[in-house]
Structure formats: C-alpha cells, structure tokens
C-alpha cells in the first residue's frame, strides 16, 4: 500500500461502505502505483458528481431511486470450498479458444483450449495482471472514452473500484476462430462487483468474446460492468454479453466501442436477469468504411426494469451503423430505450439505422422508447423506427388451429420475435447458445 495516496475523509463519502482503493484490506488487488493514482482520481470524481435526478434527460423515464448504492459494499472473496462448484457451473459453448472465470472479481480459472491464444503472440490475461504488465496499452485504452449517456458517476465508481476482468490483445492479422469465454460470478448479500472487459483488436485481426454475468445465490447485489472494445483498421470483433444476474441485482453495463477504418464491430446483449438493469452502449465510428452492429434481446418479467441507452456517433465519412433492440415484456416489468444517432458535420455518406421493437405481453407492462437523430451532414441516409404492440392474434389463431395450446403458442411467437436478433450473429454455435438460454427463460 502506498502511503502517498491520500484517503478521503469518511464523512465526505456518500457511500461509506464502498471503500476507496487505498483503504482496502490486505485481500485487495495490489495494482501498481500509476493505476492506483488513477483510481484515486476516479474516486474523487465519483464523490463529487451528483446522483442522477429525474429531470436529467439521460435518466428520462427511469426510476432514479432504483440506483441507490447505499446497500452495497465491496464484495469479499468467496470461500475456497465454493470454487469447484462455481467452476462446474461455468458452462457455455462446447468449443472455445479459452475460458476465464471470476467470482467476486477474483480469478477462479484461466484455461487455454488449444494453442491459438498462446502461439500467435496474443495477450490474454486477467485485467489485474495486464494492469501490472501492460501499462502502455492500459493507459492508451482503458476507459478512455468515458461515459457519455448519464452514468458518469457510476463509470467513475467502476474505475475507482475495478479489480479484475478480461484483457485481450490480438496482434495484427491474427484471427482467432473459436470464441473466448469469460464468466463473472457475484456472491453474497450487498456484494458490489466491477468486472471489466477490454478487447484491443489490432488491424486485420478477428476475434469473438462472450461474457457471462451470473449470480451464485439470490442475494441483492450490485454489478457495475464496463467494457472497452477497440477495433483496429480492417479488424472484426464480435462481442456477446449474457446477463443472467438474479432478480435482486442492480446491474450496470457501460460500453464503449471504437471502430477504425474498414473495421467492424458486432455486439449483442442478452438481458434476462437483474432487478434494475442499466445499459449504456456507445459506438464511435472513427474511420471511413467502419461498421457497427448493436443488438440486444431483452425478456423481462416480474417487476424487472431494463433501461438501455445507446449512442451511434458517426465521426468519419462512409460509416455504417445498425441497431436492433427487441424487448418482450411480461407481468409488470418495464423497459426503457433511448437511442441517438449522431452524425458529425463531415461524416458524409453515413448510413445509420436504429430500430427498437417492444412486444407487450400483459396489461401491466410498460415500454418507453425514445429513438433520436442528430444530423449535421447532408449526404446521409439515417432512419429509425420504434414500435410497440402485442402478440398478433392472427399468428396465435394459426398456431391454435394447428392444435398448439395457447401458452405454447404464445411462447413460440415471443421466441420467434426475439430470435430474429440472434440470427444476426455470424456464429452458429453462439446462436444456439442464446436460443437455449431464451428457451430456458420462456418455458
């Protein structure tokens, strides 16, 4: 522990249970000094920034009371006895290039399947290790873009508290065919975790990463996850996040994707869990020819709230972005979607699309949509659409007339509605995995 890092006076901290890095017990990750200084600065920013209020445009439709952080404190390490059981539960795809698993932000395992991740000079390691050994890359890319969509305070908290996660660096021209998986488990009452994923794809490289966010039990918990996806010239990155936290979890996902010349990024989020889920996804289309696909599948029930904010920033000409978010709402759940396509003055020949579709399955469910456009270049094609409706009675009638019981017929229609998004994934086994999880939810 470094004595030069000043501790903020406890009285000035609005959330006394979430301790700054420097107050951490002996169990805490020992990040090097450069990073600890950064975390200290982030902590100060966190304490200075106000909590969101109802009148903030970025929190429109939200319940700002739902993001109260006071019940949470930094998570403790899990008992050694539980590790084996958790590893056994960390099951995803049949074939992967590697698997990492964390419980309460502590590494459970890192496994290389085959040699692809070792042989080609790929750097794939726990974030903790990267912070210690890859200072240059971390300083260049780690949370460089900042939160733009209202969660500056929570982004600062993540930065100040981050302990571990996945670091992946794919060198120029290297293609990793099989996906890389990473499991993030949360355990314990009031546990706060801050998983981070950083993917740096050098020019002409190709990689697929899947993150799983899950809870061990049913305790209330906080997960503030963040990811940085940096796609170099001509590179291709596919990123999938499967969020299946328990119904007591307050979950954040703060994403920043930077797409360079002729590069393409495809991100898909499957939201099934959580009490209140806040997702902020930003795609920066920074190089000509770049393309970003932003996809989301959300199935809500009970009193879940899923609050998704997106931003497609076209900073360079000849860029394309395509967003498709689908929500199926059951019981008295709510969804919020606010999205914006921003086209900078010089980003001519932009082709941007944004679509949100809500399927309301009960009278108590509520879908809020606010798709937006801000266009400052004239030679563009930008469209957006938002629809909200219910299961088509004709589709139901057709299925019923074929002898399918009502409930099964409804499930089929909902599944078909959501499955359209999974079909956009360029990876058959991954599609299959998402379909299985969806089936498990709907059945």
């Amino acid at each position, binding site marked *: 522990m470094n004595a030069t890092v000043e501790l903020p006076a406890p009285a000035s901290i609005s959330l006394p249970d979430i301790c700054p890095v420097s107050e951490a017990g002996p169990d805490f990750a020992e990040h090097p000094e450069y990073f600890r200084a950064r975390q200290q600065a982030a902590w100060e920013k966190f304490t200075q920034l106000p909590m969101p209020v109802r009148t903030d445009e970025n929190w429109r439709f939200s319940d700002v009371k739902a993001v109260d952080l006071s019940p949470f404190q930094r998570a403790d390490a899990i008992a050694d006895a539980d590790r084996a059981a958790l590893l056994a539960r960390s099951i995803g795809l049949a074939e992967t290039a590697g698997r990492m698993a964390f419980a309460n932000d502590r590494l459970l395992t890192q496994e290389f399947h085959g040699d692809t991740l070792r042989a080609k000079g790929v750097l794939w390691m726990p974030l903790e290790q990267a912070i210690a050994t890859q200072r240059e890359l971390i300083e260049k890319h780690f949370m460089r873009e900042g939160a733009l969509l209202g969660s500056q305070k929570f982004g600062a908290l993540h930065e100040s508290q981050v302990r571990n996660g996945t670091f992946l660096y794919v060198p120029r021209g290297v293609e990793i065919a099989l996906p890389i998986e990473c499991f993030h488990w949360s355990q314990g009452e009031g546990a706060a975790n801050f998983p981070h994923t950083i993917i740096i794809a050098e020019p002409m490289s190709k990689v697929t990463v899947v993150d799983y966010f899950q809870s061990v039990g049913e305790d209330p918990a906080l997960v503030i996850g963040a990811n940085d996806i940096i796609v170099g010239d001509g590179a291709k990155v596919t990123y999938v996040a499967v969020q299946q936290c328990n119904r007591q979890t307050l979950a954040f996902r703060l994403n920043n994707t930077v797409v360079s010349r002729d590069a393409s990024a495809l991100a898909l989020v499957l939201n099934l869990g959580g009490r209140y889920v806040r997702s902020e996804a930003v795609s920066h289309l920074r190089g000509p020819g770049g393309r970003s696909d932003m996809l989301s599948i959300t199935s809500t029930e009970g009193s879940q709230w899923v609050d998704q904010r997106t931003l497609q920033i076209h900073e360079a000409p000849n860029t394309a972005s395509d967003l498709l978010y689908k929500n199926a709402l059951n019981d008295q759940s709510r969804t919020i979607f606010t999205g914006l396509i921003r086209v900078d003055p010089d980003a001519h020949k932009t082709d941007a699309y944004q679509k949100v579709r809500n399927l*309301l399955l*009960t009278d108590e469910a509520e*879908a809020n949509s606010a*798709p937006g456009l801000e266009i*400052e270049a004239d*030679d563009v094609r930008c469209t957006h*659409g938002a*629809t909200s409706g*219910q299961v088509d009675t004709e589709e139901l009638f057709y299925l019923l007339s074929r002898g399918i019981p009502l409930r099964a017929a409804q499930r089929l229609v909902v599944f078909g509605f959501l499955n359209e998004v999974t079909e956009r994934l360029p990876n058959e086994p991954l599609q299959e995995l998402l379909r299985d999880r969806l089936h498990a939810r709907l059945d």
Partner: protein
Amino acid sequence: MSTELLEPIADQAAQLDIDRTAGNFSYPEQHKFDAGTGLSHATIDYISDVKNEPDWIREFRHKALDVFFSKPMPTHWASKDLENIIFQKIRYYLANGQKPKRSWDEVTDAEKRTFERLGIPEQERKFLAGVEAQFDSEAVYSNMKKALGDEGVIFVGSTEGLKEHPEIFRKWFGKVIPTGDNKFSALNAAVFSGGSFIYVPKGVKVKHPLQAYFRINAENFGQFERTLIIADEGSEVMYMEGCTAPKFETATLHSAVVELVAMKGAKLQYITVQNWSANVFNLVTKRAIAHEEAEVKWIDCNIGSRLTMKYPGVVLKGRKARGEVISIALAGDGQHQDTGAKMIHAADETTSNIVSKSISLGKGRSTYRGLVHIPKHLKGCKNNTECDALLINSTSRTDTYPAITVRGTGNSSQHEASVSQISAEQIFYMQQRGLTKAQAMSLSVNGFVNDLVRQFPMEYSVELKRLIDLEMEGSVG
C-alpha cells in the same frame, strides 16, 4: 446578435434579386396604450386597468406572473438560444386602444393598407365566414357574417370573450393548458391580449373556415395572444391563423397559448402558417382536449422566426377520440424550427396520427420533438408517427427526439423517421430536361412536402408553395 442574424437574409435577397421586401413594411406607430418595457406586477395592473377587466382576470394574471418568475428556463433540454431573451427589454402590452371594430369601414386606412400587402383579396373575404384581423395585440377588426351570428357562433377577441361570455369561456379558460404548464404558458397567462375566442353551438357545422391574420408592428414588442375554441357536441369548425411580420432590429417574443375543446362528436381543425421575421422567438403552447368520438386536427406550418418551439398536442379524453398533427417546418439560415407533437391517450380506442416533414437549408436546424403516451389499462389505442427530414446543404442540421410510452397489450404504436437529402438522380433528370438546378431543387422539395401541403386549404397551399420556392432559391448554388 440580431444584426448578425439578419445579415444572411439580406445577402440572400441581394444574390437572388428577388423582391424580399414585400412583407417588410411598417407604418408609423400610434399607440395610445403602451405598457412600456419590462415586466412586473405593475405591468399586470396596467394591462388590467386599460382593458377594464373584472377582478378574477386580474387575479389570474397576477398569479400567473408569480408562476412565470418561479419557473426555470427549460434549457436542460431546449435550445440555449432561449437565454438570449431579455425579458426586461420587451414590451408586454400595446394596443390601439379602440374596442374591436364591427364593420370594415371603421378600420383605419393605414391598417387597411397593411392587410392589402398581406394579400387578403376583397373577393376572398366574401367566402371567409369571418375575418378576425389582429393588428398589434388587440383585435382591430372583427366581422362575422350574419348567418354565423344567427347560428349562435361566437367569434370574438379574448378580452371581449371573457368579459361578455364568461358563462361559456370561463369554464375552459386555462383548463386545457394550465398556467403552470410551462414558463411561457405562465407568461402568456400573465400578459395575454388579443387572440380569438370561439364557441360553436351544438350541431352547428361552420361551412367556411374562420380566419385571423396576425401582425406584429412595433419594435421590441411581444405578442401574447390567447385563443380558446370550443366546439360543442356534434359541431364542426375549421380555424385558420396565418402570420407575417415586418423585420426589426432587435428580437421580439411571441408566446401564444391556444386551447381547443372538442366536445362529443365534434370536429375541429386548426391551421397555422407561421412566417414571423427571422428575429422573432416564437414559443407557443397549443393543446386540445378531444372528448368522445371527437376529432381534432392540427395543421401546422412553420417557415419564419429565429427560434420556434411549438408542439401541438391532443389529450384524447373520450372513447374513440382521434387526434392528428400534420407539421411542415422549413428552417432557413440562422433559424431553428423546434416543432413536434404530443398525443396523450386517456381513453379506450383512441387513435392518433402524426406526420412531420422538415427541410433544413443553409445553416438552418429543424428539430422534431414528439411525445406519445398510452398509459395503463387502455384498450385499442393506436398511434402512428412518421417524421421525414430533408437536408439541403452540408451545413444544415436536423434532429429527431420522439418519446413513446406504451403500456398494456391492447395498444399499438409505431414510429418511423428518416433523414435524407434530395436525390441526385431526380435533380439530374430534371436538369437534363432543361430546368436550372435551383428550379429542380425547388420542385423536388415541393414534391417532398406535397402530400401534406395538399391538406391545407387552397389559398394556403398556394402561398406555401410560393414561400418554399422563395426560400429554396436562396440556398442553392
């Protein structure tokens, strides 16, 4: 500030060699009643004294002023340009002091000349059911055809309406748009003068549109008209409002409140063509209540002003009520047209439709802001929203910010928006047929808005096409 804003327009006119001075005239001001600049409770008392208003209206104004002072500017979402309004430099009341005139002969020659320049032909007047011509903030001329009067239609200025027909108008006055709705509705409630109060009795179908022309004719003078239209059960009425304003040196503020009430089965159409000069802040609150099976349609066209913020709304309060907003916005250099629509569904089987088309030229910016709300436990509600934006120059800007809330299984809403530029192929085709680029662009833009323009009454659609042509010619080349 304002001279900067005016320069591009002057340049444009010079380049094009078009006579842009047609609407740019003003006559010597002879204002018997002038409240001076600035706003305080004394201003309110002054207005109330001049208008000889009953105490309840005076009370209403004072309360509204307090609300106005207490409300913050909505700059957390709206344009920062609002901060350039200096409320203490604005005149809040100004009138010729006469009571609204009853016959055309009583209107002064200077005022008649003004209307002549605005292009209300003599013959047209015959066809118009009644012309409520607003000169400055007081209705100076009000003439209704005898037939209308016989049917019991009341068509008067706001002051007259509240004083002489309180039993009809007081019930709804300030009820559709409460004083505290927003900062500018509060301002209007405090200092309103002018505007039209209309009552159409049960079952009466007004054949010809009712029309009012508004003008601003004094520098630094804000116009705060207040309109309330009540269409009783089963009645039908169409109201048209068109504005042109002379150009001034410093910004003026226009902040109207328009309330519409459509009782059971009534049909109400409200048409606006707004063409204020490019130094006017036009911050208008317009809302309607549609009762059972009533239909309210706003047709809204915004061409002028420096900043317009206007989102006509319909509260669909009765079963099977229908609301519609048709909106055209043209944002030229230095202009910001921040327009849109609000549809609040509050009963079963209500339907709403919003069609918005905007064109941004030069450094102009057009914004669509929409709100669709279908709350709990309603059945069979439907909304359809379409917004299309056309960008003419590389410096033009457009934004779309809809907000849609839908709850329950019985309802549906769909929203679609697109942003594009004029198709190069279309222009090429027309140019090789011998049209100049400007003509081709103009034709293309007119084609873009054509299906909406056709919904305007004839004389308006002709005027609109001419205005679009004029604006377009300035921005191509």
